[in-house]
Structures are given as C-alpha cells and as structure tokens.
C-alpha cells in the first residue's frame, strides 16, 4: 500500500479530521504523566514520549467494564445486558511492543469461546503505530523478535526530520487513510529512502542498549517442572511486596476478576483487572494453594515465560516494554528472572 507524509506542524489538522468521525486516543500529557487519552484541541500530545505509564490495553480490555445487570424481585431474577457501548475509535502512537501485546491478548480473548466484549473493541479500533526513535535502557522488545523500527498495526508511522510518514498495512488502515489522505502528500522514493535510513539509525541505537542481547534460551515451553522447582525463586521473590504494580502496567497481563455491586436498585456485575500477585487471587474456603509470595511471584513469571509459550506456539506473554522494570518499588523484574533462570543449563 502507498505511503503518505505530512508535516509535523499540520498534525493538529490530521487529528481534528480523524476526531470528526470517531474518538481519537493519543499519548497525552496530564499532570506530568503521559497516557492514552481522548484527543481535543487543547490536549498536550506527546508523540515523542516513548512509552505511556500504563499500557494501551485499557482501550481493548478496560480496567473495569460492565458485563450485565440483574434485577431482583422476591425470588425472581432478571438479566439485562448493559455492556458499555463501543464506538469506532483510533489509537494513535502505539509503540511496536504494545502493538505486539494486542496479539498476545488476542490469543486469550479471541480463542474459543470468544470474549465478545474484547472482540467488539478490537473490531472497532484502528491501531496506528509509531516507530521508536529514542529507545530506553529498559527496552528489550528485540528479545521477542519485535522490530521497534518497523512496528505492526493497521497503519505504521515514522517521524523523520519534522515529517510524519504514514503507511497503511491493513484494509482497516487503508479505509481510515482514505478519510484523511487529502491532508497528506503521497511519499516518493526519496521519502522511502529517508524512512529506511531512520530505521537503520534506530537499529544502530538499539544494538547498543544494555538489554539488546537478552537471551531467552531455555524458555521454550519445555523444562516446565525444572524451572518451577528451581531454588532461585526464593531469592528472586524475597522482597516482592505483592503490590501488583507490575501486572497493572503490563500490556500483556490479562487476569481479571468478576464482581457484583448492589446499588440498591439492582446488581451490576462487572469485571476488573486482577493480579496473580495478590494474596486472595486463588483463595478458597479451605485455603490457597499459593501460600507465600514466592508462589505468587513464580506464577507471574512462569506464566509469561513458560506456560503461555507452551500453549501458544512459543509466543511469550511479555513484549519487552520495560514498564515493570521502571515501576517495581523493589526493582525486581522479568529481566532479572530471565537472567537467573535462563541459559542453556536451565534452572
């Protein structure tokens, strides 16, 4: 498909045009924090910001969402479906790692039986990705075969010397492009060359990152029990607070809880993010099989690095976004786990 370009000064026009027909989410700074927020003319857009504090999973798998409502009358119950309405939207400025995270979530939510709440958001959302230019020391997407210079999505974008390059990749992306192409110019061979050069430059930067060569050897979905029984978990999990921060900022963590809220006129059943790091996650009337933080900690990382790949043709449930590296209050993270338990002579 054809590539387009637009001068960075004209981006507000592009945003406004897209926002005419649907909600547009962009990395927007509010109170010193950049997150995906709905765009408006006064928004402080930060396309330059590498990663939002929370991931973009909220847009497809919201932190809380309504499932259904119950009315109780004496012994009778009636069910009313009151799912939150889903309207077409655009998610602009997603990094390559977060784009891959949607593939990971798809494996869970679109597997039979399909989660129709998630599915309708996926169908209604157009993902516009943004190639990275200044990756950080905590980035290790490369370890998962993700190319930060060539992000997937419905449309990929590159920012080179004050120009945004725009390339639709899917039919959905093409359809959106047609609604805004009047604002853009078609890119030529020279432009193509510029993008390629910027990609090369980014690769050179990436190669120098400390985690570029992070080695996942040994995490092949096999050696499940060997890894599980490793003595190293004790030391790794020793200081974990069980705060769940790592799971909340993680683009691929997908565990959820289902809860009821009685507002006096009926019962709203909703779901919300949950965390395997919490002590009540597996609590039953007669106790929990994961008694200490060691077991909970181990579950998070075993799931991402061993169980998930074993069920999904080797796909890891981590995309190397680095969020858990910066957010953990005790500086524990998946990289330390990979280094401790990986390598040829596994556990």
């Amino acid at each position: 498909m054809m590539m387009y370009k637009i001068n960075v000064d004209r981006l507000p026009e592009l945003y406004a045009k897209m926002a005419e027909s649907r909600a547009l989410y962009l990395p927007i700074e509010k109170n010193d924090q950049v997150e995906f927020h709905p765009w408006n003319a006064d928004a402080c857009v930060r396309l330059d910001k590498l990663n939002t504090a929370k991931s973009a999973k909220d847009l497809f798998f919201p932190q809380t969402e309504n499932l259904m409502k119950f009315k109780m009358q004496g012994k009778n119950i009636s069910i009313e479906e009151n799912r939150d309405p889903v309207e077409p939207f655009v998610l602009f400025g997603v990094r390559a790692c977060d784009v891959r995270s949607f593939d990971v979530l798809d494996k869970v939510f679109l597997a039979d039986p399909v989660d129709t709440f998630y599915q309708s958001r996926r169908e209604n959302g157009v993902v516009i990705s943004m190639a990275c230019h200044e990756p950080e020391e905590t980035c290790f997407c490369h370890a998962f075969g993700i190319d930060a210079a060539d992000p997937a999505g419905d449309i990929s974008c590159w920012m080179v010397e004050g120009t945004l390059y725009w390339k639709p990749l899917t039919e959905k992306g093409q359809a959106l492009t047609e609604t805004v192409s009047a604002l853009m110019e078609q890119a030529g061979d020279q432009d193509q060359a510029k993008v390629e050069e910027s990609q090369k430059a980014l690769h050179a930067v990436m190669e120098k990152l400390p985690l570029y060569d992070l080695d996942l050897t040994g995490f092949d979905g096999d050696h499940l029990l060997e890894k599980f029984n490793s003595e190293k978990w004790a030391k790794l999990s020793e200081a974990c607070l069980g705060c769940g921060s790592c799971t909340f900022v993680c683009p691929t963590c997908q565990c959820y809880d289902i809860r009821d809220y009685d507002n006096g006129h009926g019962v709203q059943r909703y779901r919300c993010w949950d965390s395997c790091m919490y002590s009540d996650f597996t609590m039953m009337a007669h106790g929990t099989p994961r008694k200490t933080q060691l077991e909970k900690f181990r579950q998070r990382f075993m799931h991402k690095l061993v169980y998930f790949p074993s069920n999904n043709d080797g796909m890891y449930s981590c995309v190397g976004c680095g969020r858990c590296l910066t957010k953990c209050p005790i500086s524990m993270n998946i990289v330390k786990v990979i280094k401790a338990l990986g390598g040829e002579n596994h556990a």
Partner: protein
Amino acid sequence: MRETMEALIPTIGVVTDVRVDTPDVKTFRVNSLDGGIPFDHMPGQCAMLSIPGVGEAMFSITSSPTNKEYKEFSIKKCGCLTDWLHQMEVGQQITIRGPYGHAFPVDTEFVGKDLLFIAGGIGLAPLHSVINYCRHYRDRYGSIDIVYGSRSKDDLVDYQEILNEWCTEEGINVYLTIDRPQEGWDGHVGFVPNYVKELNFDVNKTAVICGPPIMIKFTLAGLQELGFEKTQVYTTMELRMKCGIGKCGRCNIGDKYVCKDGPVFRCDQLDELPNEY
C-alpha cells in the same frame, strides 16, 4: 434460548427441589424457566451458579446426563455464597452457566472396563453423576465397585439412594465406611485410603478418586501399593474459578486451566503439573 453468544452471561434457573443430605450438605434441583434443563452435560463437568450480589462459583453437576428432567447440585455449606444457597427455598431463582470442563472418559477409556469409584465426603458429588451414568448404560462396563466414606453416618451424602438403589443392584458392590465408630452403625469403620487397601482390589480396574486433596493423595498411594498404575486412576481438581472459560487466569496451573482442561485429570497427567493444588 440464549440471545447472547457471550459465555460470561448466564441464564436464569429455578430451584425446583431442595433435599437435606447431611448437616452441611444440601442437594438442589434446578430447572430452566420453561421447566426443561438449562443445558446438556457429561459426567464430571461443572456449572457456574450465582446469586447476583452474593457471588458466583463453580459446582460439579451431581445428576447424571441421562436425567433429562433436571440438574442437581449437592453443595456443602462452606462460605458466603454456599451459606446463601443453603437458605434457598423451592421457587428461588439463581443464575446458571455452563457446562464447563472435561468430563470423565465414560464413552472412551471407561468402556469395557471394571470400574472402581472411591469418594470421600462431598467428593461423592462429582462421582454421583458418573456412577449413575454408568448404571444407566450398564452393559457398556464391567463390574462396578464403590467405596465411599465420611466422617460419620450422618455425613454420608445420598445415603438413601445408595442403600435403596446402588446396594440392591446386581454387579455393583458398595463399600461404606465412617471415620469413627457410631451408635447404629454396624458397617466398616476407618479411613477411606486404608479401607481401599484392605479391600485389596484387583489391579485391572480403572479407578476414580474424588474427595479432599489429602484423601486423594493417600488413596492414590494406597492404590499404587496394590499395584495400580497412575494411568489407571482419574481424579478431579478444585481451584478457585471466575470465568470458567480459560481467560481470567484464576485456575491456571502449569500449562493447564482447570476450568477448561480439567477438572478431570488422569493421575499421570498430574505428574507433569506443578504441585500447586
């Protein structure tokens, strides 16, 4: 019947009978609003029952799939939702969704085999379904032995049905036991795992064990002492569940989700899973 394709959205069921089984176990009969059954199931499968505002939880379906009139659930009182369920009267509506999980291989591996069912306490609930299924299709299976134990005589679930129907049927041997001697009980006294060893079953049987984790563990060890292989023994696993469809992550253990890959496992399969149950 259902307009939505969303698995998390239940249908309404109505309680059509309540039976007091033991001081802390009641059996609830559930029908759909039109008087039929909410779904078909296979023995060993479970369903999510809920009282909106109180909670939703997974229960094994106690009735046999061959029963097309209603579904039954034998439920032990052990916490918030089950306390509430125990207060229910006939006519109470609840929500129900399912069936979930893998059933016992009643139409494959079990066919032509001599079957040995071993239950402890409320562990009879999942076995009740498979036992009655096998009784219904009696000629598909060899001999049937049932060992069932509880704390006391009063804690034996379905005691009347066992006495009146199972014990009187030809080709079915029932062995009951209670943990401690009790007035009015002239049957066997002792724990299930020991009783199983005493009974010295023939090792060519296919066995199913259901009960508390500790009872399963010792009974399996007992069977192995008799010469049984783990590949001949099945059991069911119980973990906390929320979605029932392998997505919420709650019941994940190793590369399995108990809600969809279980609750029935063959004991050799358990060796490949982390010991987290």
